[in-house]
């Protein structure tokens, strides 16, 4: 049973795309299969692990629980959209410096969540970080390093005047 197809416009990492999608296409697969933005990854498919986090109009969502059709007309930011002119985003630099990753399958999601958190709360308390990132799963369990990466990124962004 084939779903209906439709044309959508979608801005991804600042670039506008006109795409033909099926109604049941998930945003995750649109990004990975059609746009080849494979830094966004599926971990659980049920919105729990956070590996597939992207920003939809600046807000973090699970791309595995978002229909591509629902994103039509909106702005999507993926991990590939953070670095500018080959320069890493301060959040990315902070994750390197604090080693906030090991196998790194979860890392794109953590970094996108960190960006969203710091956009919303520039100087979060430890408790606010824990609460915001509570349902991002790092099975290597490098949580303390990730906390330091978030705090480091917060300082970096403050120093650069955001």
């Amino acid at each position, binding site marked *: 049973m084939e779903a209906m197809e439709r044309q959508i416009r979608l801005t991804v990492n600042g670039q506008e795309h006109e795409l033909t999608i099926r109604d049941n296409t*998930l945003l995750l697969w649109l990004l990975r299969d059609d746009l080849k933005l494979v830094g966004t990854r599926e971990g659980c498919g049920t*919105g729990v692990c956070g590996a597939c986090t992207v920003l939809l109009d600046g807000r973090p969502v699970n791309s595995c629980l978002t229909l591509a059709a629902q994103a039509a007309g909106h702005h999507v930011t993926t991990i590939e959209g953070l670095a500018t002119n080959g320069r890493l985003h301060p959040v990315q630099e902070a994750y390197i410096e604090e080693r906030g990753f090991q196998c790194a399958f979860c890392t794109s999601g953590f970094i996108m969540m960190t960006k969203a958190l710091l956009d919303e709360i520039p100087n979060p308390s430890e408790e606010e970080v824990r609460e915001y990132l509570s349902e*991002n799963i790092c099975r290597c369990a490098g949580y303390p390093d990730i906390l330091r990466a978030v705090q480091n990124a917060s300082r970096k962004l403050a120093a650069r005047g955001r």
Partner: protein
Amino acid sequence: MGFDLLEPRTVAEAVELHARDGNAVFLAGGTALLILQRQGLPLPRRLISLRGIPGLDEITAGPGGGLRIGALATLRQVERHPLVVRRVPLLAEALRQVANVRVRHTATLGGNLAHGDYRLDPPAPLLVLGAQVRAVGIGGEREIALAAFFRGLFETALQPGEVVTELAIPPTPPSGGTYLKYALSSNDWPCVGAAALVALDDHGRCREVRLALTAVAAAPVLVRGLDELARGEPVSDRLAARLADIAAAQVEPVGDQRGSEWYKREMARVFARRALLAAARRAEAGPVGDGTKEPVA
């Protein structure tokens, strides 16, 4: 399997679309439906998306200190809205404990209620707040008290083809409220969720006590018969324990991996008591509600 996404621009159009295909399902945030699909539940041929309907996600002040929350407002919108934080901090506190920020940015309050899952958190605070559901169907619009809304496992008072459009929260008396979510690990569904609202009189005695529990029956439970015992009584551990016993007698837990029937009933008792005491403590510290001062953070 495929489905078609229909995108009406008005509620009337949405209801009309459903009238044409009775198997169609309304789609709000979509998180629950897409999970069900993944779990192998076949979705119908047509999904009617409500997201494109303008104005359905507005949050506005209601008369006399109440609130109106559009059904399509996301949980995160509600949780962060200044009116909600000021007038019903209990609701904001509960929503902060739902799933994760990403889900809360997508899932809607109306969708959450219509889903009817017995383990969801929002019904408990909304029950103690006395919320009213506004639903629109082909036959017109009606209001349903939330207390009469949940019927059983994934079963609500909504008729086929009816859409939740708005949630009305009446003014609350000056009171303290809390929502306690008890889970076996930090990211799990609740083993028990308990929402309490306690209003005190000028002498610090109970004027009104409300309590709702989630995850301990096929549907969320608004505990009845508390005021008879509590009204006029000073808040004490003994009173809270007696009220909690009443609550424990009204739940009908189904044992699952989060606890046997016995354990869940015990925890219903424990968290009923704790929620009542915590709410009373807040009521003493600085009640929120109708014309009173702002809550203590």
